[in-house]
């Protein structure tokens, strides 16, 4: 439910705010005629976007369509800004444009923005199933009504903002221009990304980093807009209240009552706008920070190999049928997760020892819910007796042996898992040549020898080690790099 509300908020809510500002600054009157024309224009644009989206079956076509619409939307934003500026600067001249001009301006300026919003909506919802079957069911009803709720909320947002803007004309221009700047910035980032994808502009490090930073911020776009809306609304409202209080004493009682009525009305309008902002913020944050979060993995117990380089885990402790997760820090600082699970029951103990990663889906890992084990990334239920075998979405098997009721895993086997996991933490290692302490993240040289990674403080040490690694390794016992401490 919150998914559809949040998508509608992301794609349409900001545009409705812009329309409200624009309509208020052009002194549009909400008659039956303008309402009907406006609503049907929006409906036509959204339907057109849907048809366009459906016709673009090839990915590159879709990217080009999006680029075109983003360019148009940017143009619309500039036009919007000019109109707003004109009506703010020359509002005193009282020369009202004809309603025909107003309609054309709004359509040209806002149309592409709606198109852009609608494309975004279809893009996000295309991978989401509204209903599993064609027969009416609870899920379909809930999703359908959340879309209806979203549309109503959007229209109310427009209405509240429009009414507020009409009462607080000093609010319109600063708010709308900041709104437009923020929106244009994100469109520009998307446009840049598409251009990089299609190769229309050359890829340079600065461009990629700039676009990446903006794209990171994009997740918070809605919150930024809501924050801007609320800040401006509060300022503008406070200012108007303060101005009213400056009215000198000695006015008639009738005038006082009239003033009070105006004050109460503007307070109500302010509260409506505040409520709108809070509603969208709450819905979007409920989805972003709660409903859409993937399931959380259970805690991984850190293990360190003994003097012989073996991790020893007693079967007795892991045979209860639960998923027992452990983690090991590899010589290059990767956190390697693995888990043990009894494939059968307590009478028939057969322990599977596997990495917490999948060849297909990567290192999201597996979690156990009830008796079912499933892959977080793709949701596949893993047939528990088959854990420990390769193939499909099964966890990657980990080489081990069983010895007097214990599972013995060698350091070398765990070290091989470093390639499957992406999480790297900072560890302090020892340069095998100079015995200096180094960080794996900042060490200038590293060399892989016999399955382990070694780090060096200088090129000289690196070369020495490469020539004759055995000379610098301990003569007896396990040959592996020394880890002094781990952080993170």
């Amino acid at each position, binding site marked *: 439910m919150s998914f559809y509300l949040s998508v509608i908020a992301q794609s349409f809510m900001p545009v409705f705010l812009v329309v409200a500002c624009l309509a208020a600054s052009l002194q549009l009157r909400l008659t039956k005629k303008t309402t009907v024309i406006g609503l049907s224009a929006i409906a036509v644009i959204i339907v057109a976007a849907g048809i366009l989206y459906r016709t673009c079956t090839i*990915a590159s076509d879709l990217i080009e369509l999006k680029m075109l619409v983003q360019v148009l939307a940017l143009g619309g934003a500039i036009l919007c800004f000019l109109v707003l500026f004109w009506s703010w600067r020359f509002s005193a001249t009282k020369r009202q444009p004809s309603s025909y001009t107003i309609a054309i301006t709004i359509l040209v300026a806002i149309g592409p923005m709606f198109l852009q919003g609608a494309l975004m909506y279809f893009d996000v919802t295309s991978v989401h199933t509204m*209903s599993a079957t064609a027969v009416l*069911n609870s899920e379909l*009803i809930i999703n359908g009504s959340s879309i209806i709720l979203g549309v109503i909320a959007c229209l109310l947002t427009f209405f509240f903002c429009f009414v507020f803007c009409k009462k607080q004309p000093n609010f319109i221009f600063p708010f709308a221009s900041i709104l437009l700047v923020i929106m244009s910035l994100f469109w520009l980032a998307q446009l840049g990304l598409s251009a990089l994808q299609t190769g229309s502009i050359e890829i340079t490090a600065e461009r990629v980093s700039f676009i990446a930073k903006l794209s990171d911020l994009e997740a918070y776009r809605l919150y930024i807009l809501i924050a801007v809306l609320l800040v401006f609304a509060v300022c503008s409202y406070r200012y108007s209240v303060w101005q009213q209080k400056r009215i000198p004493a000695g006015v008639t009682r009738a005038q006082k009552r009239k003033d009070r009525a105006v004050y109460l009305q503007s307070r109500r309008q302010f509260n409506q706008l505040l409520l709108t902002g809070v509603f969208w913020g709450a819905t979007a944050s409920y989805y972003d920070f709660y409903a859409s979060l993937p399931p959380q993995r259970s805690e991984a117990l850190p293990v360190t190999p003994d003097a012989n380089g073996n991790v020893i885990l007693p079967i007795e402790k892991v045979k209860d049928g639960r998923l027992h997760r452990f983690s090991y820090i590899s010589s290059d600082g990767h956190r390697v997760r693995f888990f043990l699970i009894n494939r059968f029951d307590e009478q028939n103990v057969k322990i599977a020892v596997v990495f917490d990663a999948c060849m297909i889906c990567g290192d999201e890992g597996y979690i156990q819910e009830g008796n079912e084990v499933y892959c977080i990334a793709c949701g*596949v*239920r893993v047939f528990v007796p088959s854990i420990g075998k390769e193939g*499909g979405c099964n966890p990657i098997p980990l080489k081990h042996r069983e010895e007097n009721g214990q599972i013995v895993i060698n350091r070398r086997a765990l070290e091989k898992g470093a390639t499957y996991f992406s999480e790297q933490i900072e560890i302090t290692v020892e340069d095998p040549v100079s015995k200096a302490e180094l960080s794996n993240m900042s060490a200038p040289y590293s060399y892989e020898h016999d399955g382990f990674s070694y780090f060096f403080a200088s090129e000289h040490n690196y070369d020495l080690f490469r020539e004759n690694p055995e000379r610098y390794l301990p003569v007896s016992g396990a040959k592996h790099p020394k880890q002094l401490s781990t952080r993170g």
Partner: protein
Amino acid sequence: MFLTIISESFKQNMRRKLLAIITVGLAAALVTTLLSLVVGVGDKMAGEMKSYGSNIRVVPRSDTINLNVGGVEYNPLEGRDYLEEDQLSTIKEIFWSNNIVGITPFLKVPVFLEGATSHQSNAPYKLNFIGTYFDHVIPIEADASYRSGAKITHKYWRIKGAWPLDDKTDQVLIGEALARAIKANIGDKLALIIDNPSLSSAEKQKNAATLVTVSGIVSTGEAEDDAIIGSLAMAQQLSGLQGKVQSISVSALTIPENELSMKALKDEDSLSPKEYDTWYCSAFVSAIVHQIEEAMPNASAKAVWQVTSGEGAVIQKLQTLLLVITCAAFISASLGISSLMNTTIMERAKEIGLLKALGASNWKVYSIFWSEALIIGAVGGLLGLLLGAGMAYEVGRMAFSSPLILEPIILPLVVVLSILTALIGVILPTRAIASLQPVEVLYGR
């Protein structure tokens, strides 16, 4: 003041308000019944589509080539073509082999039961002997001791007695209905003779009967209730079809269907290469079915959806009709409310005039009538829900022999629809309020 006006209106016009509530309530009751029927089945279907386990049926390819003769599906080859028993292990060699939980082959052989006759005539009792695996070793490349059979794939079979052992081919399960008909019990011995139309009666006599022992009575709710279920080896021996099986049931762990898998289900060729990869590498039941067909070229595999192909198919055809009836019920209810409200407004013209004269805006006057409609809709909807729930319970018991339980989502849906009905009924009559001139009504003109 606002509340006083509304409560007075209800007190003074109780009869008319009750009539309006009943109008909405009846429509709501009808709609509750219809919706709980549709949504109940829809939820079951959705649950089936979103479940994490699926059943797949594999049959010889020729079984699926149907001839349509005069509207009747007819397949002359049905049951004549067979799959090889050796092929079973290839199912465990597909990409998603780890997600295949169980494989069970079936071979149906018509037999006579010696010593028992059917009720109608004196002919020997004819029945089907179904050969299968109960808990049998199927050697596969990765695991030579892989075991599978009906114990794993048909967990819903209810057994009285014990499962037969696969290595003792003379042990069988007997269907519940059959056991009642021939009065067989656990431990009884039955003599079976192969029913082969090509043999003459003399040859049939010569064919020695095969003795089997009943180890348990099974109830499945399907065709097995009238059959004897024994080992596959026994069925092959009886029929002389060595190493053949007729169909294979596969039970697999899958992920819920989504847009992509639906698209693939309709037409695999419509997928782009990237979509094809995603689909092939996800454990959708359609992807597993596709891979089984790739692995067994002479076989055709199909996902078995119980609700979807059963009651779901009926509801899917009826749902438009039911939704039209729903709309009709609400439209007629709102027309009823509309005429009731018209009278009310005529009667209360003076009151409205007075309110307007005191400075109430049109909007304020509207809100009085709208609030009344809201109360009527909510109360009527709730009453209708109660009535409808009872009706749905009865209808379900009569039509599906299982009472329909109200899905929670219907509660808010019906209440919201009822309120909307009442509001729509009120909107038209209240338009007259705007044209009322206080001075005219107060003077009685």
